[in-house]
Every structure is written in structure tokens, then in C-alpha cells.
């Protein structure tokens, strides 16, 4: 057994032992508040067992291991439905950025340790009503105020802001220069006076994203994490931080096996639907898509283990998998016919086709829409020319609204 295989076996066994307390069944029927409380305990248990911050430097409380161990653990963890998503953004982007760019190392270490133990949560305040895909189109502004800054404006789609203690934020500090050049990156205390968080209810019925309003929010210059006007680069660094996360070729929807089971159990024209050519074709195509993505990921892991850099094809995962999840879920509903009308808004997206279907659109938008991903592939990977960009080089305050 390779070292990595030994690591996987040990992690798998530990995770298995956590299932009765924190797994799917244990969480069933919990309110969001109770689920979050359970999630904090689970995060602490991970920390105590040495499975939090696996690939982070030990000086900040991490485990100092490699990226492969991290992905290996995550892959095993995904199997059990643990409540880890509350910390997904926090530990995924803001905290790693804080470790990289935060100036006051003692303070940073304290934050990292608290976040790793589930005590504190961070959110990412990038998107705004007028700036989603166009990340540099932000209007929330910070103006000099004594020794620090004063923030005014609005953010939107901020995941978990309602539970967050801190957030990283990109704001406009100079509207007189082209849009990328006038941005600055800060961290903010989400409990500071002038910060208002208002939940947004989404299509599936839950409200984990928020609008966040900043009304004369005062912060010190020590909150700044980029040079003044140099915020865009740090924002991009934030988005690039974890290129290879544990991927899910099911697009975070149900496994293909569940579809096969459904097709076996459903009768179509007096025979099991699994015998129907149309159903078989969809299963085959879906399988081929999923196995391709799995192979991309496996190859990337192998390359990293061999000290090589994986190719950019890893960026296909979300694009390909979520679209196909959306359509397969539609077909699964069709296949149930008049038994397919039912909907349980507490059902898991990974096990219930209707829940998977109704929530699939968020997966095609959050974290970069299909279209922007395709643009990135076309322009950055394939070298195709950029779209015409009328805002290029134009001072931000002169771009027609």
C-alpha cells in the first residue's frame, strides 16, 4: 500500500466512526440552527483528529501535508453527508487568502485556528447587484476616513453571511481609473456597526445567500489586504486558490446508480424502463461523461503526486457535470410520470431527483456561470480572441451605465 493509500484507509475508517454522530441520518430533521451547531462540533472533531487544514502550514495550525492528502480526505468525506458545507467558503477561500496576505501574523493565526475548529466563519463579499460575472464592475466604495476607511454600498449573493463573523471584501477606492485599477481588498468584521445582512430566499426554498449592506462602516487601514488599487489581483488570487478540489462528477446531484435503480424499478410499456433504448442511451452517455471527468481528476492527482502540474481540463468539471445533472434529473422526473409530482424540500440534492433538479440552476451560476467558464476556456486555454470590451481602458466613472 502506498503512503497515500494508507492515508486514505485511515481517513476512511475515522470518517466511518463519525457517521453515527454527524452523518446523514443523524442530521435528518434538524433545523438549520441545530444543524450548524452539529456542524461546528464536527469541524472541531476533524480538527482534533488532524483532518482540518490538512494541506495548510503548521505555523498556522494546519497539518503541513500535501494537496493530495487533502483531496483524498475530501473524497472520502463526501460519501457520508456530513455537515461540512457551512465552512466550504470560509475555509475554501477567505482563510487561505488571509494566511497569504494578512499582515498581522499573530492575529491571522488566531483567526485561522478558530475557523479550523468551526468557531468562526468567514464569507466572501465580492458580487454586487451590478457586478457578478463582471467582477471588476463593483460600486461599493471605501473612502479614506481618518487613519482608516469608510465603506458604503451593497453586496449580494453572499453565502453564509448570516452566520459569518468576518468577511473578505473588494471595494472601489478610485472611480477615476479603469475599472480593474481602482479596487482594493480588505477584511471586515461582519458584526461591525453599519453592516446589515438580509437573507435571500432561493428557488428550492432555502436562504443561505444574503444581501449585505454597508452603511458608513468604519475599518482601520490594517484591514487592508492589498495595495490601494491592487485589489483585483488579490481577488483573482482568491478565485484561483483551490484549482483541484475534490470533484464530484455527478455535479453534486445523485449518483448514476440511483438513476439505474429507478429505471429498473419503473415500468414503461409493460417492461422495466431499463430495457428502453432511450433510457439506456442516457445512462450510457451519462456514464461516459462521468467517467471522463473522473479520469481527468485521477490523472491530475497522479500528476501532482509525481510533481507535475495538471492540465487545465480540470476546469471542465462544474461546467459539464451540472448541466448534465440538470437534464438527467428532468428525465428522472419524467420517468416517474404521475408519481413524479412529489417534492420534499428537506430531501437531499444528492439523493432526490426533484431536489436535485430544482436546485441545479444555482450550480450553473454560482462560482462562475457556464458562459463565463466557456469564455475562460475559449480565451485562456484555446487562445481565441476576447469579446469586444467597450469598457476596456475607460475610467470606471465614464463607463455608460
Amino acid at each position, binding site marked *: 500500500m502506498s503512503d497515500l493509500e494508507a492515508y486514505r484507509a485511515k481517513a476512511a475508517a475515522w470518517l466511518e466512526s463519525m457517521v453515527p454522530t454527524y452523518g446523514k441520518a443523524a442530521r435528518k430533521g434538524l433545523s438549520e440552527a441545530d444543524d450548524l451547531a452539529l456542524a461546528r462540533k464536527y469541524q472541531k472533531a476533524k480538527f482534533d483528529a488532524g483532518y482540518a487544514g490538512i494541506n495548510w502550514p503548521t505555523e498556522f495550525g494546519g497539518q503541513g501535508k500535501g494537496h493530495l492528502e487533502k483531496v483524498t480526505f475530501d473524497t472520502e468525506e463526501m460519501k457520508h453527508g456530513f455537515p461540512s458545507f457551512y465552512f466550504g467558503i470560509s475555509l475554501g477561500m477567505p482563510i487561505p487568502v488571509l494566511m497569504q496576505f494578512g499582515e498581522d501574523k499573530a492575529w491571522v493565526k488566531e483567526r485561522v485556528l478558530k475557523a479550523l475548529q468551526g468557531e468562526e466563519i468567514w464569507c466572501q463579499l465580492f458580487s454586487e447587484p451590478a457586478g457578478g460575472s463582471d467582477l471588476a464592475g463593483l460600486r461599493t466604495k471605501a473612502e479614506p476616513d481618518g487613519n482608516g476607511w469608510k465603506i458604503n454600498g451593497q453586496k449580494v449573493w453572499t453565502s453564509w453571511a448570516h452566520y459569518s463573523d468576518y468577511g473578505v471584501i473588494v471595494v472601489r477606492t478610485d472611480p477615476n481609473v479603469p475599472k480593474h485599477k481602482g479596487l482594493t481588498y480588505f477584511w471586515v468584521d461582519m458584526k461591525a456597526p453599519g453592516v446589515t445582512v438580509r437573507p435571500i430566499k432561493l428557488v428550492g426554498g432555502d436562504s443561505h445567500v444574503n444581501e449585505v449592506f454597508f452603511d458608513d462602516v468604519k475599518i482601520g487601514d490594517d484591514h487592508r489586504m492589498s495595495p490601494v488599487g491592487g485589489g483585483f489581483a488579490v481577488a483573482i488570487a482568491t478565485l484561483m486558490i483551490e484549482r483541484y478540489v475534490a470533484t464530484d462528477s455527478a455535479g453534486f446531484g445523485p449518483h448514476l446508480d440511483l438513476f439505474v435503480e429507478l429505471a429498473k424499478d419503473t*415500468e414503461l410499456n*409493460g417492461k422495466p*424502463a431499463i430495457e428502453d433504448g432511450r433510457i439506456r442511451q442516457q445512462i450510457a452517455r451519462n456514464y461516459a461523461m462521468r467517467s471522463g471527468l473522473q479520469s481527468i481528476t485521477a490523472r491530475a492527482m497522479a500528476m501532482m503526486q509525481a510533481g507535475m502540474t495538471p492540465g487545465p481540463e480540470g476546469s471542465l468539471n462544474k461546467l459539464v457535470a451540472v448541466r448534465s445533472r440538470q437534464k438527467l434529473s428532468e428525465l428522472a422526473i419524467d420517468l416517474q410520470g*404521475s408519481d413524479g*409530482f412529489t*417534492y420534499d424540500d428537506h430531501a437531499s440534492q444528492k439523493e432526490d431527483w426533484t431536489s436535485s433538479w*430544482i436546485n441545479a440552476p444555482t450550480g450553473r*451560476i454560482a462560482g462562475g456561470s*457556464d458562459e463565463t467558464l466557456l469564455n475562460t476556456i475559449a480565451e485562456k486555454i484555446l487562445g481565441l480572441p476576447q469579446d469586444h*470590451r467597450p469598457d476596456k481602458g475607460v475610467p470606471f466613472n465614464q463607463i455608460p451605465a
Partner: protein
Amino acid sequence: MSILYDEGQQAIATESRRVLEARVSKEELLPLLETSGRYHEGYWTTAKEQGWTALALPEAYSGLDLGLVELGLIAHQAGRSLSGAPFLTSNFGAAKAIELYGTEDQKAKWLPGLASGETIGAVAFASGANALPARPALTLTGERLDGVMTGVSAGLAADIAVVFANGPGMPVLAVAELADVKRTAIASFDNSRLYADLEFADTPAETLVTGGAAREAALHILALQAVITAHEQAGGAEAMMEIARDYAVTRRAFGQPIGAFQSIKHRIAEIYGLVELARANCIHAASREGQSDFITAAAAARISATEAYDTASRDCVQIHGGIGVTWELGLHLHTRRARSLAIEQGNLLFWEDVLVDRLTGEAA
């Protein structure tokens, strides 16, 4: 029947659109989603007041003697405004079954009530994926029905249901009174359709047709309903296309309207193609009522309308980005309706089979 709308028909379209736009709002529709067992009462009152329930029924039974084309026009507008409580289609299907296959007594007994909308009808044929199952879930013995039907559209409120059942040795089409039938509301993703499981136990029922003719009759009723539903789907798809288009010309990113990006522009143009194909198929199918190729035309309408509505609602949300997935904006009302209509009156798989059977003369 012509495939060009005449003035009278155009007036029906304009008037029904005006009425529906004035009376149905997203603000009323959203709360309906939150519990099962409610529906848009204002819409149903409107449908009755406007005579839509009587539209395609014979004058002799208090109907207006118009046809599928006119009802289709209204269904298209209902689809645009998402108004539909399920009754218009279900009432129509039940009434048509009685009109086409019932005795004089049965017609006199049921049709006037269905025409005025005082009686609510449902059509209950499907078992899961099978819109017209080889082995129906209900059994008719003498004049009594037994068995369970799942996921009946309008089932929670209907007074009568036309059912497809096992008669003595052969299938039957029958009409049952639902007063004493046990109903369980289904918590659904489209909670205004009054989906219910119906438990028949020694329930009084009257036979309409038996034997091989019963299956043919049931398919015919389904096809009539499917054409109405297809109009509703085409209307919904058209609304999604327009909403997407309007957003694409106003929302800006990277210094320009997002509609300037080909990925957005082409998508809306593709939806246009789907909507127009569906609309054309709907008009054609409605005009073929009573002709030998009606079922074929109905299947084509149903298939293209399902594709149009699913795609248009999927893409319209995508074109909106984050705002598209909010509860408040209500695009999901269309997403939900696209899916519920896709499985009412037979899913895509069913109509694909019907169509290919007709084209090839061979059953799946």
C-alpha cells in the same frame, strides 16, 4: 378547420390575455407553492365567468360550440400568465369523454355542470410512467370501482373523474363520482395543481366504453388534453423567451448589455426557434381534431411544446444569473410549471412512443 386564426379567434386571444394579465399576479402565485391543496381561485372564477369552461362543448348542453382551436388560444394565454389551476384541461377532458362516449342520460347529467364549471372534472388514467397502462390500477366490478390512482391532477378538488380501468376481462372507460373517495393531497414542486392520490373503494361508477374501443377512446381523450396542455406549454415558453429577451437588453456586464454576448443572444434565438415550432405544431394539431391524423399531430405538438418549455425555462434562469434563482423573482414558477405540465397527460416518453407507433405502425 383552418390553420389561420380568424378575427373572432384573434379576439379570443387578445381578450383572454387582457383578462388574465389583469387578474393573475406572481404575488398571488408564489404563496400557493408553500402548502399543498390550494389553487388560484381567482383564475377559476375568471374561467367560469368568461365561459372558457363551456367553450368547446356542444350548445345542446349549455356549451358554446367552439373547438380545440379556441380553447387552445386561451390555454396559450393561461400558460403565459401561469394562471392554470388544473381544471381547465381536466374539466375539458372529462367533459369530452362524456360528450363523445356517454349516453344521452350521462350527457344530460354531467355536461351542463361541467360547462358552467360548477362541476369539476378530472381525468385519471396514468400509472406512474404509463399514461395509458396495459394493466390499469383500477378495477370496475358491476358499477363499482376499486383501487388507488396516484398523482391525479385536480384530484383534490374534482367532483367526478373519468377513469381507465380493468373491466370484466377488458379495459373500460368509466365516469366515477368522487364524493366518497378518500383523497390525499401530494406535497408537490408545483403545489397549485391539486395533485392527489385517490383511493376508490366500492365507488359508484358508470361505464362509458368497454373493450378495445376503450383504449382508443382513452388515447383520444389524452390527445385532446395534450393539445390543450401543449398550448399552455407553448405560452409558458413564449413568456420565458420574452422575459429572457427583456433582461438581456437591460442587464449590463463588461460595459455592454449581456444580450450582446453571443452565448446569450444565440440562446434566446434558439428558444425562439423552439417556441415557434411548438406553436405551429399546436395550431396544426388543434385544426386536425376529428381527422385521422389527429393523434399524430397531438403527439408532435406535445413533444415540441415540452422541449420548448423545459428549455426556455432552463435558459431563462441561466440568462438571469444569480437573480434568476431567487424565490422572489418567480422565474421558478415557470420552471416548476414546465416540469409539471411535462408529466401531466403523459410524459415525453409516452408521446414519443405514440408518435413512432403511428408513423411505423408498430407498437413499442
